[in-house]
């Protein structure tokens, strides 16, 4: 098993290093479906975080009582309970938002991100750690959805969070708010993020190599390639 991380690291790893959408490719359905605008993305991410945190809390509390054969069913039931709660609250408090997100709120039940965290983390760690981890993952999800929704909203309808940011002569790209735009935006975003991280990794590797390996001689080491 890995060495234990400090609590703050446990939180931060969800933001970038293990970002649920960009790095783990989990929770794609809501990430693609509701990010027509930044606001929808935020609402979705907050609802997901709520469910994630509370189900982590409950599951890590009862982790020693749940028999491992029926754990998946138990997890899903707990998650579904909280999703019902969120759905009812949203319907009562934010009816318009709830209507816009439509069936994607109940679909939080089957968000792989939530079940994945329970299986990989909450079932093995203490209550406090699990909640911190859930908060981190939720924030990472929020960042991803906000970025995705922001880009699509700016390019697709000239606005962000309802405020116009691009001038009127800019013709909105209708494609961005259509399903195809979601796939293309996320695909390019992930590709560029990979480019960035790989470049960073390569530079780091080269820096380490330079520090430790002195150029010995001009003769190449691998001359055995007959």
């Amino acid at each position, binding site marked *: 098993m890995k060495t234990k991380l400090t609590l703050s690291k446990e939180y931060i790893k969800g933001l970038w290093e293990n970002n649920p959408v960009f790095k783990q*490719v*989990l929770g*794609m*359905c809501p990430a*693609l*479906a509701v990010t027509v605008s930044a606001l929808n993305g935020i609402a979705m991410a907050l609802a997901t975080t709520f469910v994630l945190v509370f189900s982590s809390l409950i599951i890590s509390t009862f982790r020693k009582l749940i028999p491992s054969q029926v754990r*998946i*069913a138990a997890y*899903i*039931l707990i998650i*579904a*309970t909280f*999703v*019902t709660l969120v*759905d*009812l609250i949203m319907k009562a408090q934010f009816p318009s938002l709830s209507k816009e997100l*439509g*069936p994607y709120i*109940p*679909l939080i*039940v*089957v*968000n*792989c991100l939530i*079940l994945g965290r329970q299986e990989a983390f909450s079932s093995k760690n203490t209550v406090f750690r699990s909640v911190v981890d859930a908060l981190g993952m939720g924030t990472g999800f929020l960042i991803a959805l906000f970025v995705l929704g922001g880009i699509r909203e700016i390019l697709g309808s000239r606005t962000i969070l309802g405020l116009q940011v691009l001038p009127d002569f800019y013709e909105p790209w209708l*494609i961005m708010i*259509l*399903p*195809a*735009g*979601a*796939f*293309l935006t*996320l*695909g*390019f975003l*992930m*590709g*560029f993020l*990979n*480019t960035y991280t*790989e470049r960073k990794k390569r530079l780091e590797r080269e820096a380490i190599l330079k520090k430790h390996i002195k150029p010995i001689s001009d003769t190449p080491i691998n001359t055995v390639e007959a």
Partner: protein
Amino acid sequence: MELILIFFSAAIVNNFVLAYFLGICPFIGVSGKISSAFSMGLATTFVMVITSIVTWLIYHLILVPNGLEFLQYVSFILVIASLVQFVEMFIKKVSQPLYRALGIFLPLITTNCAILGLALFIVLKEYTFIQGIVYGVGAGAGFTLAITIMAGIREELDLADVPKPFKGAPITLLVAGILALAFMGFAGLISV
């Protein structure tokens, strides 16, 4: 006639994967080879059809008469989880190679949003029993179609020179975007 419309609407115009973003996980995960993608599609279709039957019955015969509609998510997901378990046992018994090829993604049908999404859409659109079944078949056919096309493209893509950072999920998403664009061409065909 109306049933035919529902079928094509679910399968092509409002394709579950490319228009509603349901079932993205297996769409990206299992679309490496045509054969396994096709069997994944068939397994999903099978679960979808049974789900549409069972959840319709549960919703209209048990939940609505007792005023328990708020229990729909919990009961739907339970039904789906046990159905998937059943299909898994069945495939394991019938075809070992297929069972191994589908691997982890078989139990993941449970958390395939397409299945629960189907059950929710049937409730939302207030379909009758028969309409619900047809919708389920259509959605399954659409899923199979999308994932098989995707697998076909990805088999060719293996030979292409994709930039390294774009390998895997990113290029799959881009291809899916282009596929979604193509499917948009059907948009005016049927309006249901």
